[in-house]
C-alpha cells in the first residue's frame, strides 16, 4: 500500500472487499463526517453516497467481485472540507483514467433506459475534487467535498 502520509488528524479503515463491508464502511464514513459540529446533512449524505459508489466500483471492477481483498480508507476532516482517500490493490481503471461520468439517456426510450452507470456520474458531479492515480500497484482515489454554509 502506498504511504500517503496524511496530514493532520485522519481516521484510517481497512476492510476486506465485499458489498456488505463497503456498505458498512460508507455508513461509517458518513457517521464520521456527520459528527463534525455544524455539519450539513445534505453534504454528508452526498459524501456517504459517493464513497459508497466508489467502494462499490472497487469491489465490482477493481476486484471483479472477489471478496476478501484489502480496501483502505483514510478520512480526514480539514478546515474547510471532507477528504476521503480510497486505496485498493485491484485492476487499474481502463487507460489509468477516470471515466467521463456521462450518463445521458432518453427518458422516452423505454427499452434502453439505463440500469447502471450512475456511479461515476454522481462522484464526478457531486464531489468538489476527484483525483485518481495508479501508484505502486494500487488504485488511489481521492474525493473532496467542501463544507456548506
Amino acid at each position, binding site marked *: 500500500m502506498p504511504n500517503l502520509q496524511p496530514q493532520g488528524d485522519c481516521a484510517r479503515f481497512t476492510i476486506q472487499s465485499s458489498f456488505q463491508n463497503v456498505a458498512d464502511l460508507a455508513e461509517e464514513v458518513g457517521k464520521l463526517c456527520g459528527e463534525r459540529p455544524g455539519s450539513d446533512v445534505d453534504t454528508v449524505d452526498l459524501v456517504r453516497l459517493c464513497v459508497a459508489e466508489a467502494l462499490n466500483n472497487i469491489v465490482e471492477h477493481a476486484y471483479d467481485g472477489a471478496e476478501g481483498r484489502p480496501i483502505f480508507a483514510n478520512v480526514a476532516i480539514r478546515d474547510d472540507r471532507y477528504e476521503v482517500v480510497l486505496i485498493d490493490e485491484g485492476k487499474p481503471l481502463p487507460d489509468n483514467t477516470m471515466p467521463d461520468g456521462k450518463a445521458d439517456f432518453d427518458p422516452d426510450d423505454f427499452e434502453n433506459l439505463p440500469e447502471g452507470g450512475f456511479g461515476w456520474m*454522481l462522484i464526478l458531479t457531486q464531489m468538489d475534487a476527484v483525483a485518481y492515480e495508479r501508484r505502486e500497484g494500487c488504485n488511489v482515489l481521492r474525493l473532496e467535498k467542501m463544507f456548506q454554509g
Partner: protein
Amino acid sequence: MYLTIEDHGHAHVLRPTKARLDAAVSTEFRNQAREALAKGGDVWIVDLAPVSFIDSSGIGTLVGLLKLCGRDRRFELCGMAPTLQHVFKLTRMEMIFRIHANVAAALGAHDPAHRLTAS
C-alpha cells in the same frame, strides 16, 4: 426476506424490508421482486418508506423492474425520503418513474372506484 407484498385488489404494494437498497442487497431484492412480478398484476407500487439510503445499484434495480413490467403494466414508487428524492433528481430518475407521496396516494391514483367518482 428482502421485501414484503400486500395485495390491495387493484394493486400490489411491494415494500423493501431493509433500510438500504444498495449493492449489498440489490441482487436478492431484484430476484425476489422478479418472482413477485411474474405472478401477474397490472399495478405495482414500491413503497420506499423503509429505505433511508439508495445507491446507483438500487436505482438500476428499480429501472430493471420497471422495464420488466413493460409499457402495459404500471410500476410506480412512493414514500421516498428527501434523501432518496435528491438522488433520483441527480440521476434524472424522477423523469422516468411516476412517484407518489405515499401508499394511500398511490393506491388512490389507481383505485377504479375513485377514478369513476372523480370522472
